[in-house]
């Protein structure tokens, strides 16, 4: 697996972290004895037994894993605390689980993934003369960013049959759903997690519950070879009042 490390503003690569984010001592799983039985089972199962890959072929799985590594990068996390994303997507497709709709201009989710993966593989060969997996992180991201920007580079016939923005939204949506439904991600972002039957009692002023922790911020930069972080232009745009 190719890696590409973010770094702290104060210097030093961020790698091998058990828990990135601004809540270093916070653990939702440490609270699981206070959760109800059904919730405890579902969340524990997710952490301890990620499903086996059954829908994708080995080759497809290797390509999709490389894509996921850029779409939902975890290079800063140590191996034991990497959140499984591919198995969650594979399980959804294997079980034919959908979200209640399909766009009239889209094929089934299963076919969309197969088409999209094939297109990305061929685009890598066309543009860089190498397999996507073998490309540098930077080139992988350049190619994916062209999908994100809805300007596939190079063009590919698949995007004439399937709108690139819908494929990208499905892929990215599946990745964030897998990542942010994992309790390690809850720890990273400071989300309190399940709270039945105990509940929350400190509702105002962003105060932590007794078992939550306060924020310890640090400045960090995305890896130097990455193009997926926000830009200064983005920040200016979002800070511009009407």
């Amino acid at each position, binding site marked *: 697996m190719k890696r590409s490390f973010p770094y702290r503003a104060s210097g030093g690569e961020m790698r091998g972290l058990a828990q990135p984010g601004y809540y270093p001592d916070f653990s939702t799983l440490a609270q699981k004895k206070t959760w109800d039985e059904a919730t405890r089972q579902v969340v524990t199962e997710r952490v301890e037994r990620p499903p086996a890959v059954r829908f994708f072929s080995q080759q497809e799985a290797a390509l999709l894993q490389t894509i996921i590594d850029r779409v939902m990068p975890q290079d800063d996390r140590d191996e034991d605390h990497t959140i499984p994303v591919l198995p969650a997507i594979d399980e959804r497709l294997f079980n034919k689980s959908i*979200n209640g709709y399909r766009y009239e201009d889209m094929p089934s989710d299963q076919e969309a993934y197969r088409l999209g993966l094939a297109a990305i593989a061929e685009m890598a060969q066309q543009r860089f003369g190498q397999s996507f997996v073998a490309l540098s992180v930077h080139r992988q991201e350049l190619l994916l960013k062209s999908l994100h920007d809805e300007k596939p580079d190079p063009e590919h016939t698949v995007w004439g049959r399937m709108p690139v923005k819908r494929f990208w939204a499905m892929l990215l949506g599946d990745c*964030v759903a897998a990542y942010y439904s994992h309790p390690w991600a809850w720890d990273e972002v400071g989300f309190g997690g399940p709270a039945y039957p105990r509940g929350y009692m400190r509702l*105002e002023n962003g105060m932590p519950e007794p078992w939550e922790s306060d924020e310890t911020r640090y400045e960090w930069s995305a890896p130097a070879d990455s193009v997926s972080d926000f830009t200064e232009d983005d920040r200016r745009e979002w800070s511009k009042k009407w």
Partner: protein
Amino acid sequence: MFHGHDEHRLGAMQTLPRPMRKFRDDEVVDYCVVGVGSAGGVLVQRLARAGFRVVGLEAGPFWDTEKDWVSDEKGSHELYWNDLRIIGGTDPLALGENNSGKGVGGGSVHWAAFTPRFHPSDFRVYSEDGVGADWPISYWDLKPYYELLEREIPVAGPAWFPWGDPHGHPYGPHPLGGVGDILVRGCTKLGIRTVAGGPVAILSASHGDRPHCIYRGFCIQGCKVGAKASTLITHVPDAITHGAEIRAHSMAARVSLRDDGRVDGVTYFDREGNEHFQRARAVIVSGYAIETPRLLLNSACPGHRHGLANSSGTLGKYLMAQAGNVVAGRFDELIRLYKAPPAHALSEEFYETDRRRDFARGFAIQTVGPLPVAFAKQMMAAMGAWGWGMRRVMMDYNHWATLGVLGEILPWEDNRVELAEEKDRFGLRVAKVTFNLHENDRKLIEFGKRKVMNVLWAAGATQVVQESRFAHLVGAARMGNDPATSVVDRFGRTHDIPNLFICDGSILPTQGSANPGLTIQALAARTADYLIQQGDAIFSSSRRDLSEPSIRYDFSPPYTKWKGNPRIA
């Protein structure tokens, strides 16, 4: 409190009454209600209390809230209507978790539970603005039912709700969470009136065998506490106590029409795919704005080639969703938007038509409280976040506050439900849902979006972004006085078939910018009173009596009596 393991739990303290009456398919029941959601739950409860023999067919499961529900976004996927539907148009409507439920309680299981009433002007949109449609009833016909349902649910909210027909609420308002605090702060700076702590169908104090809210924030994942109202816990238990049968995992396929032009039952499939036929003297379809027209379109038969009760050609048309733009602001201080109910403060200051603006009707501003997965998906669209950008904005999750624009989109003929070529696992054609925004809608959304962005700036946000989306579904089988332009009359009876009724969100001619749940339940209680007053005439006569029924205060679920709506003016 001790509960045995075999008990079926409805919230932390309530259990399902047992035994439940069972009807055989070949027994002729009085009413077969298709869909036990917001409307169906109220209907079966009222009809059972009045002594009718009632079966409610529900496509989804009969939830045991303790075993089946979890405090977890991903683990709550089964609450939604996830079966295939095809979506299209210039502005396709995302379905599933956004707006449709499956299982006893229906959408009321996963609604955020805002319960504003519609305004009096909502019932006269065409008369006042020359757009949309008028309702065949007025606000004043529905007002006693709003008050009654506010007590039955019961609704918590401020003592003074200043918009529309001003009113108070039977239960006191909830404490504010971080997002509500931002809404109130921003609006107050701009001189916009707000209410806080409701109106929501969430208990601020215990009620019978239901405990009060614990502020865990998982409202739309199903309330395990039993504090948030769903018909699963407010009306269905009382229906069963009074002899109704709720038949879960029963997917209606067709409503059957006899040669004499009256319906005589419903064909449905059980979870194993076996076909059954439930005989009934009258049928009420309560499947919501997509499944209701789908069922009637799939019930086409000789004499009704374009679907049952579709002589007007309007069945499936005039489908509405509300604009549901989510506007997010980043604050230097911590907000922790996951605490407290997502629904807890709002403003309806911009609800009505304002002649100074270049569009008709208006919008509301409401709190929303996306949990991490939902928030990450919103940031995909709002900020174009992916890769390290996604990781970065999510690490700031606790610094963001999110407000919703709830904007009125007018009823348009080209927004519709039809049948697609694809079929479901029972061989039934699935729905195709087409949605297009029109000029008035686009102007309204643009104005509303900017207004809410300004609220967040005024509250002290350092960044403000927004995602365009939609909320709720109503229309597609609208009520009206004219059989040529509507599907049902003022009581939900189809113009074409005297013993076939529709009672759910699909009968709404317009939608205002109020969340539709309370209005749907109020309409169901009124239709029930009508059916009870008409008695056996429904089952044999074709005479259409359009006089208003008298309201029955003696058919409410337990713990409603002696509760009051504050008198404020």
